[in-house]
């Protein structure tokens, strides 16, 4: 009897493995959940980019719900998301702070913004990734939602589109504002 059971074991183990695999097929192993969720905005301080007066630091995060967007002129997906950010700015939906990440030289960022438009109310210059590392960023674009008390509530990886705005970001923003 025991022997019979032992012979069935491989089949059982395979079934368990298969269950994990099929569950795993829908997921993306590369996305890193943010450890910053529900924690205060990390300490950081970035100088302004060329041609601007104010930079960005963790002291800029009180009393309003904001988005922090990591971008770079070299980043193709940022270009794709850019028009949507401009829409948000035009409609005054929510203030967007920008972290200009890893530009090769100091004019690249400002030139890109001049060419395509500037959706950000505050921008920090981040050539050495100190800001990006503070936020645990792994690629661009990434966007964080921060609430009125300076607590990080959401991390969004990849470009913001109408779809994921409707599905995830907007509901979260509304919830925070209605508190």
């Amino acid at each position, binding site marked *: 009897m025991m022997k019979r059971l032992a012979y069935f074991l491989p089949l059982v183990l395979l079934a368990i493995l298969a269950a994990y695999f099929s569950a795993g097929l829908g997921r993306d192993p*590369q996305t*890193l*959940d*943010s*450890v*910053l969720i529900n924690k205060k905005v*990390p300490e950081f301080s970035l100088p302004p980019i060329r041609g601007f007066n104010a930079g960005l630091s963790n002291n800029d995060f009180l009393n309003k719900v904001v988005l922090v967007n990591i971008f770079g002129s070299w980043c193709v997906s940022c270009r794709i998301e850019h028009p949507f950010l401009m829409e948000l700015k035009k409609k005054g939906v929510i203030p967007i702070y920008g972290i200009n990440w*890893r530009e090769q030289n100091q004019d690249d960022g400002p030139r890109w913004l001049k060419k395509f438009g500037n959706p950000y109310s505050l921008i920090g210059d981040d050539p*050495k*990734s*100190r800001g*990006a*590392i*503070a*936020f*645990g*960023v*792994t*690629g661009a674009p990434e966007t964080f939602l921060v609430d009125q008390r300076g607590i990080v509530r959401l991390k969004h990886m990849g470009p913001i589109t109408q779809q994921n705005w409707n599905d995830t970001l907007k509901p979260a923003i509304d919830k925070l504002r209605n508190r």
Partner: protein
Amino acid sequence: MKFLILSITLLLSSNFVHAVDPGEILKDSSLEIRARAISKDLRCVVCQNQSIDDSDAELARDLRILVRDRILEGDSDQAVIDYVVSRYGDFVLLNPPVKGVTFVLWFGPIVITLIGFICLILFFRRQKPLIQDLKKNNAEVKK
């Protein structure tokens, strides 16, 4: 011959580097060795199967410099690692820590070995009476 070389010759006891630039190398070699050791245990979050020591990614480079800056500021090895983990999570440790979630991982091989041992012993136990029989048969035949 004039030598304009920033050089460091290391006898490495484990893995290998190709991504570190001479410009990143710290002057104090004992600190540099610490930096390299820490870097080898931190996962590059962009090229996710390499350490930041090995990876060519820009972010890896920045993290390497960050590690060295923190060492220069006086952080202990653990403090440096804790800082990176506080930003990126346990995922960034190439050697997963021994805590709840990874318990199974670290003790798994031991458990597997034990189970295997038990199976082996059971297998040989089952053979014992048969061997006795064979010896008895041989003895009888000889008689």
